């Protein structure tokens, strides 16, 4: 059977073999609960492994280790920071419902958390995004109110890959006395992510987007006192996040962070080249093709194109039949036949949104994969267009 060409790395990535190797002992041999480290040498081994992973993540994002709090992934981190921060600042500082600023094209982990806050009486502004797919810091400035407690803008969009001016937006937030969060799920280990350079107070990370395991993530928290716990329980993670540590997951996340840091400069260059090659070849083979979002301010692994006159659903299915895996909107919404909210937020009409596909590259992507995709996709587009 021919090798599957996997171009959906923005949805998830395979676990790196070296990551799995480091995780394995923590399922059966080193299964101890890290919280028992005071009286158990087995617990001490697990605790040491968790702290080593914490250090590796801290090194990747330029934080102090104690600012790295382990969670179950990006969605939990996003839920926690929005709800925990807005509730705490509203109750303890404002003494009335606070205001949150975010953007229309955020991941649903942010959008739906923001709507949940709105239902509870907090105020939310969803800033609009222009055609380029980049939030204008001045639009954030105009959205600020005296009661704004948090600004949350993603570092790079999950569908179109556009990189946001987070440092500038963070300055706007801080000028108005608000805290700044960024969802860095699509950028961590792909482009340089440094919490001080970005000027953020919180940052969400998910391991499975950079060859780590699913179910492991991080919320970087600059000041532990800035938010309420989200999962109440034991004293894990400085009492901020209860639940027995997911030791294998955390160890895998740490290893993926270490590998990600080592590989980043080379991968950034390699994937940028491959991605641009893919676009050039597809543009040569298909007429009426448009890139969604700014092409320069974009993570190296992302290509999102609109192919006039086709519906993305049959195209993706035909690609799958040919062994090429890609996506329409985000994987989280693949069951819906609705147009992507990201694409409509940058001004695509419904028809344009439904004729768009996302091709996302990763560490496993080779030049051969790109060649094969560029050979096969134009034929499938021709096949679909021939029916019309």
């Amino acid at each position, binding site marked *: 059977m021919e090798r599957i060409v996997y171009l959906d790395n923005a949805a998830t990535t395979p676990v790196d073999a070296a990551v799995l190797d480091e995780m394995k002992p923590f399922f059966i041999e080193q299964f101890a609960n890290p919280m028992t480290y005071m009286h158990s040498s087995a617990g001490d081994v697990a605790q040491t492994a968790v702290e080593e992973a914490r250090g590796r993540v801290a090194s990747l994002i330029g934080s102090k280790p104690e600012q790295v709090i382990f969670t179950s992934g990006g969605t939990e981190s996003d839920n926690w920071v929005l709800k925990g921060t807005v509730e705490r600042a509203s109750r303890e500082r404002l003494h009335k419902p606070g205001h949150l600023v975010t953007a229309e094209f955020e991941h649903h982990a942010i959008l739906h958390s923001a709507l949940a806050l709105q239902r509870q009486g907090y105020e939310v502004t969803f800033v609009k995004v222009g055609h380029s797919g980049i939030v204008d810091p001045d639009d954030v400035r105009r959205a600020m109110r005296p009661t704004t407690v948090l600004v949350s803008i993603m570092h790079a969009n999950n569908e179109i890959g556009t990189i946001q001016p987070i440092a500038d937006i963070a300055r706007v937030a801080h000028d108005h006395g608000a805290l700044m969060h960024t969802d860095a799920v699509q950028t961590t280990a792909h482009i340089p992510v440094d919490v001080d350079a970005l000027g953020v107070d919180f940052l969400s990370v998910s391991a499975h987007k950079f060859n780590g395991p699913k179910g492991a993530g991080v919320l970087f928290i600059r000041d532990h006192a800035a938010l309420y716990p989200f999962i109440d329980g034991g004293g894990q993670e400085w009492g901020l996040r209860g639940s027995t540590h997911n030791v294998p997951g955390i160890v895998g996340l740490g290893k993926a962070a270490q590998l990600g840091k080592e590989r980043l400069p080379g991968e950034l260059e390699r994937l940028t080249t491959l991605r641009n090659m893919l676009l050039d070849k597809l543009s040569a083979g298909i007429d009426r093709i448009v890139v969604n979002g700014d092409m320069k301010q974009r993570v190296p692994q992302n290509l999102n194109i609109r192919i006039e*006159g*086709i*519906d993305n*659903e*049959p195209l993706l*299915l*035909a690609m799958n*039949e040919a062994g090429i895996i890609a996506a329409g909107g985000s994987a989280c919404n693949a*069951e819906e*036949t609705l*147009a992507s909210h990201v694409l409509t937020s940058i001004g695509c*009409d*419904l*028809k344009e949104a*439904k*004729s768009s596909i996302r091709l996302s590259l990763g560490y496993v992507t080779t030049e051969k994969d790109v060649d094969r995709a560029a050979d096969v996709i134009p034929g499938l587009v021709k096949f*679909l*267009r*021939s*029916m*019309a």
Partner: protein
Amino acid sequence: MDKYSRVTIREFMSPSNIGHIDDPSGTGHITDNADAVELTLFISVDAGRITDAKYRIAGCTALIATLSVLSKELPGKTIDEALTLDMPYLSGLLEGLPESKWRCARYAVQALHLAIEDYQSKTS
């Protein structure tokens, strides 16, 4: 979780009767921008029976597969028989179309009804 049957995928990957009919007895046209659908169904009718059905389609997988099986069912049927073709029956021919896709696939049946209305308005 709903997913396409192998029959549906096969039908979609090699659809029957794509094309158009010169001087058709009836034509049904549907455009829906929100669903990104553009569909024209042509029928030929002779001595009260449908003799041929062809279509041009830009739309989703379910609609393409449904049109393909519908177009194969129509020849030989009277207008009354053709009007009995509905989504449960056509879905059955595709070994079960996911229910979430019925809304889009139903454009096939609607186009047939429009083509029949067109035929009837010309002959009445």
